[in-house]
């Protein structure tokens, strides 16, 4: 009897009360728990996907999507497929173009085709819409008829552009976003100098973001230190002073800076009144890069202070006391004992401020003037004014890649684990 029991205990599987395998029961329970947990996360996951991931995917798709010419000028696309791009194409391409123009005008798509081509070659819009109006009455030979309607139809550049835009996907928006373009032989070349802009703006965006991060660190570090070390009754008050602006609307804070900094504003008035500057020597502190940096530093400061504070709070004061009692002077003990322990806070705060700054829009739009505009302002320009959504998407795509790269570089150099967000 006892032998049997021992044998069962060693050799046979363990059974639950109802006779099923205990291991299976355990697995089943665990699986159910996991499902419940997943079910609880599901709404959030779906929300993040629908409002965040999906638009980003859509944006990236739009930056290369190029359906307009391909879909609305099918005959021309087919006729140009085997054209070698030398000289001007033959009569069949012109005939196909006339047929497509007639069709596109009837379906009211001609404006979209003209708009798309006009982004690539300035002045094409009126040529297309104007020719489309006459196309219905054109007779063979169509080559002569089109060139008679507008000289541009005899230009190789127009046909090369149409052939290039005939592909359903294009990299031309990304080229435009880095100040480049295709030339007449489809080589990538730099954009004309008086049209180059985005590289400068990307550089400026990085520079302003860096400046704002450094300023926030310089201003935020002492504040966070005080918050962490002062007695509770003082630090609470200080905390409220940090948080109060944080709870105030972004717009209110930005417009307050306008009141303070403008040429006839409080600060300039005060400096004139005290005689520091003359009436004529009022300083331009807003509607330029300086205004953007000042306002953004103020607005983003809490994002630096809070992570720093949460790290500093966990550093026992006894470490500093130990360093001092072992003979280090205050500066050495701060530099070698205290500061290294705050690195996770510095990393988190800087990364947070930097990444928030890089996509900042409202503040530069309001106080940036001419030299304080950042890349988001140009994305907005192409969304709202020029309606070149493809270019806006390409600019956004580059910014996204840039942020991901910075995050990757940061995790390589500092390590993501070595970061404390709060």
């Amino acid at each position: 009897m006892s032998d049997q029991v021992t044998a069962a205990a060693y050799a046979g599987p363990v059974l639950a009360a109802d006779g099923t395998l205990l291991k299976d029961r355990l697995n089943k329970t665990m699986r159910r728990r996991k499902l419940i947990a997943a079910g609880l996360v599901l709404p959030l996951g779906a929300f993040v996907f629908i409002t965040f991931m999906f638009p980003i995917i859509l944006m990236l798709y739009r930056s290369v999507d190029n359906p307009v010419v391909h879909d609305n000028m099918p005959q021309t696309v087919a006729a140009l497929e085997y054209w070698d791009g030398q000289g001007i194409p033959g009569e069949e391409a012109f005939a196909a173009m006339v047929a497509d123009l007639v069709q596109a005008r009837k379906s009211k798509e001609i404006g979209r085709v003209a708009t798309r081509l006009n982004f690539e070659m300035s002045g094409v819009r009126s040529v297309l819409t104007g020719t489309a109006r006459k196309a219905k009455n054109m007779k063979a030979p169509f080559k002569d008829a089109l060139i008679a309607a507008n000289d541009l139809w005899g230009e190789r550049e127009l046909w090369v552009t149409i052939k290039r835009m005939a592909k359903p996907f294009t990299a031309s928006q990304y080229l435009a976003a880095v100040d480049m373009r295709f030339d007449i032989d489809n080589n990538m070349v730099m954009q004309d100098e008086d049209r180059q802009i985005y590289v400068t703006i990307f550089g400026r965006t990085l520079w302003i973001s860096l400046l704002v991060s450094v300023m926030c660190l310089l201003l935020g570090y002492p504040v966070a230190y005080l918050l962490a070390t002062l007695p509770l009754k003082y630090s609470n008050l200080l905390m409220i002073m940090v948080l109060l602006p944080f709870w105030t609307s972004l717009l209110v804070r930005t417009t307050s800076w306008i009141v303070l900094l403008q040429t006839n504003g409080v600060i300039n008035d005060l400096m004139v009144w005290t005689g520091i500057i003359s009436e004529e020597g009022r300083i331009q502190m807003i509607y330029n890069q300086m205004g953007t940096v000042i306002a953004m530093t103020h607005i983003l400061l809490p994002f630096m202070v809070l992570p720093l504070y949460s790290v500093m709070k966990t550093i026992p004061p006894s470490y500093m006391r130990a360093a001092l009692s072992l003979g280090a002077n205050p500066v050495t003990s701060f530099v070698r004992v205290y500061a290294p322990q705050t690195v996770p806070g510095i990393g988190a705060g800087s990364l947070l401020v930097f990444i928030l700054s890089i996509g900042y829009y409202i503040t530069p739009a309001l106080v940036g003037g001419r030299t304080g505009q950042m890349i988001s302002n140009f994305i907005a320009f192409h969304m709202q004014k020029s309606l070149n959504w493809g270019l806006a998407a390409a600019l956004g795509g580059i910014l996204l890649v840039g942020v991901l790269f910075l995050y990757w570089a940061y995790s390589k150099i500092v390590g993501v684990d070595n970061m404390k967000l709060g």
Partner: protein
Amino acid sequence: MSKSLLLSTVAAAGILLAGAASAGNLTVVSWGGGYTKSQVEAYHKPWLAMGGKAINSEDYNGGLAEVKAQVESGKVVWDLVDVELSDAVRGCDEGLLLPIDKSILPAGDDGTPALKDFLPGTLTECGVASIVWTTIYAYDTTKFSGAKPTTMADFYDLKKFPGKRGLRKGAKSNLEMALMADGVAPADVYKMLGTNAGVERAFAKLDTIKGSTVWWEAGAQPPQMLADGEVLMTTAYNGRIFGAVATENKPFAIVWDAQVWDLDLWVIPKGAPNVADALKFVAFSTDTKRNAAQASWISYGPVRKSAAPLVGKHATAGIDMKPHMPTAPGNFKNALQNDFAFWADHADELNEKFNSWLAK
């Protein structure tokens, strides 16, 4: 980066919600401020008084972006939008707007058929014009003791009139005004802007005041900048300056030389929820009486010939409105009409050049 994207997603969600909330009302979208007020007084109130559908009045900042977003997503909530001529033509070409049958427009009060009563060029395939407006420059009279500026060249003369200038942030009308300040006759402006040399000449002229320029975007900004003393003179929409003078007693004066005039038109986005009522509103608001009445609230000119003689006094300030119309003979001497076809073709390139010039 995802900030702008998030914003647009939130905006899209907002549009959906707004659509659900306001279905049933006629959504009329215009430029806000004194201009929308003039439309509320001259069009909306009499429209409601005669039993028209309730109106939901919204403001926007111009451009076709919202219309395009609504039409492409299939969730159109705007019934009627007040747009500039170039946008009316472009939106029509791109299939964003509904063609409007001009036979719905009533004849003028003097019996002239509508097609003859509207000034030439004020009716387009998808748009019906309501006003003539213009870009001028204005200054604060109290800031000048001696000579006052009278020509566009004076605006660019920093030696004669030292001080900050205000300009709209964009290529349109700035390039034209720069060329006219440089001595180009209005008739030659667009011919010249069609060439690289002409564009360079315009930017070279703008370069001379670039360092002393403050840039504005919304029409309400220039009068504010003048009032704050932020600028000595600024380009502006004439109605905004007039509004500040008539209703706030500001000491501003307008220089009409080298004005660049344009039209505002009613357009209907494709797929608008209340097309029938929108059409009725277009016909109602552009009849002779309403067209003249709106000019008694803001100094934008009527587009109907039959309305011009009916323009009277300002509704509250009692100022005679005729001399303040952009089209008044004294003001119209050296005027240039904004060439929508030119801008439809060249806006992409010239705005890029302008942005690049601005960033340097």
